[in-house]
């Protein structure tokens, strides 16, 4: 592999990691299309690379969120039973499917994500109804509102079911699955969005690890591709978190939602 390919993978990882973190999506949604469309990588290798990148960004982010006490560790452990089970099934299924089929399923996922991104904008602007009579209580200091927020978790079974689906998609397509879990945790379980996002991010590393060795054992982890890409994604995700605190995200979300729609079509028709 040439130096130019190495640099391109690193830069691509940095850009996709930055955009993913700015939009709160994780890198996989942009990384897999980059590796497939720009680098002509087989779908299974692109997914395997993305899964390891998800572990890196989740682990780095979770260590920060744990210090901020926004992660509900007990809830995360409960939901991980569902996400890990789903991810193992997803990883096994993906390795039975042809790359062409996976590419078309991924195109469908991008379509859903682009719609969900716009829908999430409306959700962010509304009030979150918190409950104090559920289970698995959590408390954190919200610096933006200078408030200490206390909450409990309601309606756990449907959230577990959605987590199973999110884990399955993670193992099948190499994304984090937060786009499904965060709305479930806020709208169904009644968690504040900061705690939901931090807990989802905490979980996706373990979820991704559940399918990582399945791809590894099938020879889909190419260290020469994965190494520079993951370093880029890791740096990009840290950069993205910093940038996202300084810019207003509404216009940006619209731009990338439309971009994802275009990538979705390109992934489907390629």
């Amino acid at each position, binding site marked *: *592999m*040439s*130096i130019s390919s*190495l640099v391109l993978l690193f830069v691509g990882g940095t850009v996709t990691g930055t955009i993913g973190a700015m939009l709160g999506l994780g890198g996989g949604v942009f990384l897999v299309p980059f590796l497939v469309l720009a680098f002509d990588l087989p779908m299974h290798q692109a997914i395997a690379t993305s899964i*390891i990148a998800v*572990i*890196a960004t989740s*682990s*780095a982010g*979770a*260590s920060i969120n*744990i*210090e901020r*006490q926004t992660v509900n*560790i*007990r809830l995360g*452990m*409960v939901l*991980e*039973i569902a996400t*890990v*089970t789903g991810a*193992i099934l997803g*990883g096994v299924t993906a390795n039975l499917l042809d790359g062409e089929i996976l590419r078309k399923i991924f195109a469908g996922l991008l379509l859903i994500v682009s719609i969900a991104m716009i829908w999430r904008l409306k959700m*962010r602007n*509304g*009030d*979150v109804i*918190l*409950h*104090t009579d559920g289970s698995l209580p959590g*408390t954190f200091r919200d610096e*933006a*509102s200078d*408030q*200490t*927020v*206390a*909450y409990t978790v309601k309606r756990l079974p449907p959230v577990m079911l959605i987590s199973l689906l999110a884990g399955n998609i993670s193992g099948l397509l190499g994304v984090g699955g937060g786009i499904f879990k965060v709305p479930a945790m806020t709208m169904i379980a009644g968690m*504040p*969005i900061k705690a939901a996002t931090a807990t989802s991010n905490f979980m996706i*590393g*373990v979820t991704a*690890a*559940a399918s*990582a*060795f*399945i791809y*590894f054992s099938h*020879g889909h*982890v*190419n*260290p*020469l591709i*994965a*190494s*520079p890409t*993951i*370093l880029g994604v*890791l740096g990009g995700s840290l950069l993205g978190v910093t940038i996202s605190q300084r810019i207003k995200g509404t216009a940006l979300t619209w731009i990338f939602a439309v971009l994802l729609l275009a990538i979705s079509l390109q992934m489907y028709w390629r």
Partner: protein
Amino acid sequence: MGDYSPGSKKVDVEPSPVSSRLVERWTGLVLRLGVWGSALLIVLGLLTSWVLPPESSASTEIPSISTVLGEISSGSFGGATLMFAGLILLMLTPFLRVLIALTAFAAERDWKFAGISLVVFLLLVGELVFSLR
């Protein structure tokens, strides 16, 4: 996100139990060590493969797990093996995180969550054994 409904409570933060704080501290430490340790190995692997002589360019062949382990145990390994070792450390970091949680909940005598952590850990180990068998 600063909008919370009237249903949210403004309360004084109760200090976490010592053991819970230990879970958080250990978990954070394991995650940081895993990520930055693996990043260091990957960087060393890339430098060994591309920058240091005599290799001017790296092979695109994917080494097998037995090759990697064999090279590490013999002490003579190249850049690809270092990169692979970094990636394996990264993939194993979540396993360690769950193991830490299991240990901490057990030390706390919180058997319900120790049991939940054990189920997650067994699922992960089962998948690992199934994959590498």
